[in-house]
């Protein structure tokens, strides 16, 4: 007996969880940027990486980012709100991942 129902269940579960996590994290990033805190990842932190910017180019990019962010149409209050929103998104995203792991581990559910 082939359980055909299992396939839509897997598809649905993966789609919902993946979309939720990606959306929450992306939203967090967007709010961070709105709040004027665009995350730039320089080469200093990831020296072992294969594709890195040269330090000079990274500094240039960081400068450009700062400059672009300086002209922020939001008020200070709005910025703060956006930042709180961003952290909330990241927290929800992490929570969603942990909940997903909780769901599949029988030991955590006492069975």
């Amino acid at each position, binding site marked *: 007996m082939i359980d055909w129902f299992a396939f839509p269940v897997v*598809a649905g579960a*993966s789609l919902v969880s993946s979309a939720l996590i*990606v959306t929450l*994290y*992306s939203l967090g990033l967007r709010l961070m940027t709105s709040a004027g805190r665009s995350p730039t990842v320089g080469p200093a932190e*990831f020296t*072992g990486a*294969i594709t890195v910017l040269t330090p000079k180019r990274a500094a240039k990019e*960081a400068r450009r980012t700062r400059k672009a962010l300086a002209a922020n149409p939001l008020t200070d209050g709005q910025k703060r709100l956006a930042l709180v929103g961003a952290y909330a998104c990241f927290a929800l995203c992490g929570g969603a991942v942990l909940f997903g792991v909780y769901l*599949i581990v029988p030991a955590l559910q006492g069975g």
Partner: protein
Amino acid sequence: MPEFTLIVVLVIALALIFDFTNGFHDTANAMATPIATGAMKPKVAVAVAAVLNLVGAFLSTEVAKTISGGMIREGDGGILITPELIFAGLIGAIVWNLMTWLRGLPSSSSHALFGGLIGATIIGAGFQAIDYNVVMSKVILPALIAPLIVGLVAFLSTRLAYAVTRREAGRPDGRGGFRYAQIFSSSLVALAHGTNDAQKTMGVITLTLIASGYQTVGTGPEFWVVAACALAIAVGTYTGGWRIIQTMGRGLTEIKPAQGFAAETSTAATILASSHLGFALSTTQVASGSVIGSGLGRRGSTVRWGMAGQIALGWVLTLPAAGIMGAFAAGLALLGPIGIVLDVIIGSIVVAGIYWWSRSSRVTHHHLLHDIDDAGHVVRITKTPRKPARRDRKKVAL
């Protein structure tokens, strides 16, 4: 732990070696993207992958039960599979795995394992010893459907990630921040790998213990089996990672952080959901499917269907080819102890030969990362998909 016969010990050792090579081979699946996009230092990435594989192996036993309790009919009136046949199946799987590795053919160690086991069982115990319903619903159909599911999920997730972080004119989009997310998403993939792949070996060892009467029919893997398999796959992951770091040069598929994050999240979600339902998936195929899907989610991408076809053909071939190897080894094993010795000798010669061959010819990163890397090349992405308006050109694009 009761005292085991020599053949049982041999099978357990061989199964653990298979587990080790599985980890060795699959580090790249989880960790190639974060290393390539610069999200993690290679050293750290490999260590994290090893630890999470270890943890993942302890999380669930559904897949192990599929193998030990469902696929092959054993016990109570049915035909008994013997440890000798499992041994033959493992030899077939390992030989096929190494051959494809050497030739750079896309293949799946999981399907090699199933193919070898099924082939050996058919030769040793006849066609009716296999429960085709279980093979169909837990192995073959998931193998066909899961890459499609994950491809679609990765495609939509990539679109979402790009849509939500859409660049406002002249302002940075913050997509570099996806690198931090990749640290977590690739870790999740490593965890998922542990939940699915380590369990295949647990299933084989449990099947052996049941077949030789050390364990009752229908029971799950014992704790020491889980622990041994978890350890073997973790050590394999760690050693394999070092090899990859040493040889990995340029030429890795270009994957943007946002795309990598979306692909990994979909991979992890699909594998974890499947493990939960006892689907014995090929993690390599799922990872490849998601790399292709997320590539398609980027603007200006086209599929190279010829290459996609080649990869698919390699996948389809694995199960029957390993089955033939397993069947051949089982035929020898049926001769009795001499056959087993012959199996060991032939297997060792093939392994030694392949090792020697791989030493003499230069092993490139293609050998180590071929599966996922090939998948990445299936999608062609135009470098500058859209010419920006003159006033936007000088603006930030980090």
